[in-house]
């Protein structure tokens, strides 16, 4: 009996590592934003699906995530239970801020979610199609003011890519950066700017209420239930996804990396996560392993090129 008892404790102790690590997730942004929400949704899903026992979220805000990534790379090195949320915005911020720590200094695990960018005009605008807008842009690039998020961010990059695809000098675009999508939305609704750019989710309720006109989406193919063409369909070869990912610490062994990838895959397939995606309106763009590494490299070089074109990166 006594032996049985001991054995069960031992078995329990041995089984514990199989219950995976108590992850700590860093959101390299202040509470409230997309990365913070992603980190907290991960926390809830990992715990509810019993993939991890106790998950902590910590916020390290600043400079498009470059403060967070620098801290993450140096302090969590070699720790197999440290995760960080990041995304496409970080790719641009690393380039514009000349951050010494880049995504090469962490271990990207998987892309989790993504949102496509939308181009809108106020309902009262005389611009009816994306063609009208580009025609105006071609006629006088400075006269078309674009409202969107921070300089060098996803919204700015999309305008640069569109200008380039339309044969307009990207350095001539008149991009008005607002602090965050909310302030930009107010300026667009108030017709302070010609057109607006942001994630489709930011505009969705306004588009449905008829106060904004959706001109185009930056998706690779038409999105079901959204009444607008893609930029590609409209003749501009631009596809842009504002994705969010999860990365692990640098200096991990191949096994440790595989274990984390396994946990993340379990998470992505779980019911809790799928429900979270639905309530938050996030698209499941899960991509892992070598496919993700290749996509990431492609995104980084394309972003660097367009930031140089706009003149933000020398």
């Amino acid at each position, binding site marked *: 009996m006594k032996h049985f008892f001991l054995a069960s404790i031992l078995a329990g102790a041995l089984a514990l590592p199989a219950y995976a690590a108590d992850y700590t997730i860093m959101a390299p942004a202040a509470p409230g934003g997309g990365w913070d929400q992603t980190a907290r949704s991960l*926390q809830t899903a990992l715990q509810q699906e019993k993939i991890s026992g106790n998950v902590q979220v910590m916020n390290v805000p600043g400079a498009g995530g470059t*403060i967070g990534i620098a801290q993450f790379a140096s302090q969590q090195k070699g720790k197999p239970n440290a995760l960080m949320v990041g995304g496409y915005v970080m790719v641009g911020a690393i380039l514009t801020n000349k951050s010494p720590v880049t995504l090469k200094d962490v271990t990207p695990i998987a892309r989790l979610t993504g949102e496509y960018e939308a181009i809108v005009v106020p309902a009262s605008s005389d611009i009816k199609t994306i063609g009208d807008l580009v025609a105006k842009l071609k006629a006088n690039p400075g006269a078309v003011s674009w409202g969107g998020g921070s300089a060098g961010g996803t919204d700015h990059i999309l305008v640069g890519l569109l200008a380039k695809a339309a044969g307009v000098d990207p350095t001539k675009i008149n991009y008005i950066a607002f602090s965050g999508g909310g302030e930009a939305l107010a300026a667009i609704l108030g017709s302070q700017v010609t057109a607006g750019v942001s994630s489709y989710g930011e505009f969705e309720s306004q588009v449905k209420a008829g106060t904004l006109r959706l001109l185009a989406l930056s998706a690779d193919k038409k999105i079901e239930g959204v009444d607008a063409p893609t930029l590609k369909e409209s003749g501009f070869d631009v596809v842009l996804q504002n994705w969010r990912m999860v990365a692990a610490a640098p200096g991990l062994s191949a096994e440790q990396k595989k274990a984390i990838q396994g946990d993340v895959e379990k998470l992505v397939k779980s019911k809790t996560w799928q429900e979270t995606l639905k309530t938050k309106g996030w698209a499941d763009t899960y991509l892992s392993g070598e496919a993700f590494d290749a996509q990431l490299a492609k995104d980084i070089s394309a972003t660097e090129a367009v930031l140089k074109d706009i003149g933000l990166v020398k």
Partner: protein
Amino acid sequence: MATFEFLLQGLLAAAQPLNLLYALIGVTLGTAVGVLPGIGPALTVALLLPVTYRLDPTGSLIMFAGIYYGGMYGGSTTSILLNTPGESSSIVTALEGNKMARAGRGGPALATAAIGSFVAGLIATLLLAFIAPYIVKLALVFGPREYFALMVLAFVTVSSAFGDSTLRGLTSLFIGLAFSVVGIDQLTGQNRLSFGIPDLLDGIEVTTMAVAMFAIGETLFIAAQGDKGPDKVEAVRGSIWMSAQDWARSWKAWLRGTLIGFPIGAMPAGGAEIGTFLSYATEKRLTRYPEEFGNGAIEGVAGPEAANNASAAGTLVPLLTLGLPTTATAAIMLAGFQQYGLQPGPLLFATNPQLVWGLIASLLIANLMLLVLNLPLVGLWVKLLTIPKPWLYAGILLFATLGTIGANPSVFELGMLLTFGLLGYVMRVFGYPIAPVVVGLILGPLAEQQLRRSLAISQGDVTTLVQSPIAAVLLVLAALALIVPLILRARGRGEVLSQMAASED
């Protein structure tokens, strides 16, 4: 009529015992985090969000509402008693409130803050309920040039908060403006004055600066004086409750503060602080007791506190009607809505009236709960002042440091806290006012960005700044506020000015 029915239903739902308990937990937590410098309501709501998954929508919204209003209220307590603003929007409260506390009038100061917050919260919540769709139309008219004009007006009017010497006040303001350009320039993405230090890329955190200048600077100043410092603070002189005169002087300030704070809070790029600045300036101009300003005038507490709470309600206008979160707390509340599959926006009032009215009802309940919770506590809070000075200031130092570390776990941030604390000390020693530094840090980037945005939109045409009627009116007001006192003073008719001010209300 339907509006009233929904509101009544919401009130009935919110008044159920369990929901009242949630409201109590919310306001208690909110007040607690408001009192601690650095830890804001945003972080608290973010931490609580996962917990509320298990509650029903009504319950969790009631708790959010409690935290939100509680946080706005809690900041004033430490401002008044300890000259340590917990949030940037209670900086102005410290100016007169702390002077009152030192003169033994901490009780009336806390009471006018509590009742003023209640009155403002009540009126502003009702305004939110009934005129939100109209207010939001007005807010959308405000583009970059109108905001710029508003900032100019704010700059001119807050100069009255600069103390006795305009030169010293302006010096402080420009120190703040210089600090405000540090970091990534929002419009071009270029780094300014960051000296290659990544921690400076996002600029200088207003709360860090405020806590450092007020709390750390004050502590150093007191410590440096040693035993030579002013005599023991008289904790209570006279009644700890408001006298008839206090009431008479407060009620108009509450109403004016509400009227200033609510629309500014509703503007997507306004911010709670600006309402408090404008309210303070207004009270100072209208008071019959100008000599008391700077020495503990009760209007200087009543007005800004009301403006602060009214703008908290104002913030919910763009959130509910447009789905626009204009503060970090509002952004997290938006995430809270989405958790129940709701998308705030132009259709929310039509598609989910129960929820919207439930929220508005919970705000009313939270507001009442705060008053009930805080008024009896006034007596207890005032006792804080009787704590021996070394203990009290050691405690302030501890809480200021903990709060900063709690909000941003970084050694660099702590270094900034101490450096600015030293700066605050030096400025005190040489008699420079502290508040304008923080005012400059807050208003500087807003004014600069809005000016550059309006010029970018007009492609460099400066006349755009006066082409909008609203902007033109605001600029004229600013010019009048600047020129009229100068002319009157030049003619040696300063008395006329103060008489005018006295007869205006």
